[in-house]
């Protein structure tokens, strides 16, 4: 629009945009910067003591990680001590960090995981194991859910993009779980996954004539996160199907006609017509899924509370557990900042990767 006297109005312009802008500033921008500030204090939700600035101490507490090599215990003659089963004995890190100056830096840290390397034992030690477990689970969740959900969503989009009678009904059905709250879905699936009377176990039992033994899907550390992933994909995949679908419908039908005339197979038509036309959509779908996956919270809160054995801890769950549960606002803020940095980094990387490929 031309910049004419008719449309220039500083006073009205500001007045009209101000309610919206003020609300966004107060409830999104201010807390966003607050997160950075609070993460460098010892702020609690309610506290009689004044808040103190502690610099990067909270980050040091949470992010501190190191690789430690433990030499085996030896007796006076220098032979390695083994127990009855022949397992090599190592000194406790806790004792070493108190007595040995070389290990003083690891005081208060605990082994997260470790492995054998020759005679010595390598251990990754961290100050805040719960944070690292939550970080690992969240990354795992994102790395599995983003490609799988994106892929299935594309498959569904291709499926409902066929020109068939009644196809709209199928579109409507596939999208249905999206409008159902993830909280409702989580509680429903707790019943489906139940180890005793769950629908899934009973169906598997019936279908296999009793050959498949029942699994306590959410009570078993090796299946709990996977079960939550599957359910999350089931709930949200219709959302991304719709985004793919709107991408598919921007591809000109004449391109397919041309491919048909050239005698292209279905796969070739997909590879050389459909897929190139979906590049922007692909970036969008992956970014949106990634951002949603990083926010993993309700499923955990309703289904497992982070258990069993911390196998389903997530970053947002930990942020809430600390910031709200333990009223440790600064601890929750550190996790929030870490989360934001991750989301930002990943969406920048994804943008960069896809931009590169276009050349």
């Amino acid at each position: 629009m031309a910049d004419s006297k008719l449309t220039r109005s500083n006073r009205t312009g500001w007045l009209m945009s101000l309610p919206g802008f003020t609300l966004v500033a107060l409830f999104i921008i201010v807390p966003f910067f607050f997160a950075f500030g609070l993460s460098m204090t010892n702020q609690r939700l309610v506290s009689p003591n004044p808040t103190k600035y502690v610099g990067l101490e909270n980050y040091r507490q949470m992010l501190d990680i190191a690789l430690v090599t433990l030499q085996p215990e030896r007796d006076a003659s220098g032979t390695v001590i083994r127990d009855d089963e022949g397992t090599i004995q190592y000194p406790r890190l806790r004792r070493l960090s108190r007595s040995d100056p070389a290990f003083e830096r690891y005081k208060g840290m605990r082994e997260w995981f470790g492995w054998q390397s020759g005679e010595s034992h390598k251990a990754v030690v961290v100050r805040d194991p719960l944070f690292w477990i939550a970080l690992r689970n969240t990354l795992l969740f994102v790395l599995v859910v983003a490609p799988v959900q994106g892929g299935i969503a594309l498959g569904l989009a291709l499926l409902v993009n066929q020109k068939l009678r009644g196809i709209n009904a199928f579109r409507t059905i596939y999208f249905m779980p999206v409008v159902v709250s993830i909280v409702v879905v989580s509680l429903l699936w707790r019943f489906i996954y139940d180890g005793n009377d769950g629908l899934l176990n009973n169906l598997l039992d019936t279908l296999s004539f009793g050959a498949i033994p029942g699994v306590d899907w959410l009570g078993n550390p090796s299946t709990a996160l996977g079960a939550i992933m599957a359910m999350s994909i089931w709930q949200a995949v219709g959302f991304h199907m719709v985004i793919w679908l709107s991408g598919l419908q921007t591809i000109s039908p004449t391109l397919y006609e041309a491919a048909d005339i050239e005698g292209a197979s279905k796969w070739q038509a997909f590879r050389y017509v459909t897929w190139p036309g979906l590049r922007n959509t692909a970036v969008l779908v992956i970014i949106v899924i990634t951002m949603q996956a990083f926010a993993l919270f309700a499923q955990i809160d309703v289904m497992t509370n982070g258990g069993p054995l911390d196998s389903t801890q997530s970053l947002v769950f930990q942020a809430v557990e600390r910031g709200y549960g333990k009223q440790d606002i600064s601890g929750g803020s550190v996790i929030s900042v870490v989360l934001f940095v991750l989301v930002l980094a990943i969406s920048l990387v994804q943008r960069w990767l896809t931009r590169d490929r276009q050349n």
Partner: protein
Amino acid sequence: MISHDNHGLRLAVRYAVLVLVAIIFVFPLLFMVMSSLKPDHQLLVDTGSLRAFLPVGDISFDNYAAAFQRAPISTFVINSVIVTGVTVMLSLAICSLSAFSFVFLRWSGRNLLLSILLATLIVPFETIAIPLLLLVSKLPWLGLDGLEQGWLNSYHVQILPFAADALTIFLFVQYFKDLPSELVEAARVEGASWFQIYLKIIMPLAGPVVATAAILRFLFMYNQYLWPLMVVQSDEYRPVMVGLQYFFQLDTPWGEVMAYLSLITIPVLGFYLMLQRAFIASIASTGVKG
């Protein structure tokens, strides 16, 4: 090329695939509703067969009655309706007005403000929830009993933080940009005020985007969980999703849980099935960003 003799077979295969996939999406929801109608002893037996998805056996609304006994469900429903309804209305009014001024008016600072707003699109709510919790616990509020400190346990703590957001403003901006600017200029020549133009000329044309924004905001607000979980402790202001916690206890009969889940889900599903084209279109329109 499709040869004619196996055309019918191919079509059958296509439909078979479509139906199989549909079963995966429908059956869990069907199971929820059917289970809500059955007594617990029957319910657990039924999970072993297709009866789990059928309204057979001892069908009644007893579970619903029991659920109402367990929790103040009517209060939760009223709270959800108030919070969701008011937020959607406020958000539509405030965001469309902002978008109007960004698109049709020329004023200094306009581009800067719009860029700042759009930058907030990459901030997930989960990353600001904790500092926001501290903020609202300190904010003053002028209530009926005078000045109070802290917003916790109220309707406004559930409404105001969501009364404006970048995505809704962005949707309106995109839509308004496609409207002919001559409409506005002509009205200005005739001496209409900006507010009149917004109300009488632009908003009557904004039906589609209003529907899109309303649906997105409605789904987001009605399904909110994390925020009300943290800021509302008393039943008096608790929405349905947080009221669900009454049904977390291990001794809760599954039939009752399913009754509550059905109760808070069926209205939304009904709403969706009536307006499914609009729902799907609004999700698709979030895909235009980026």
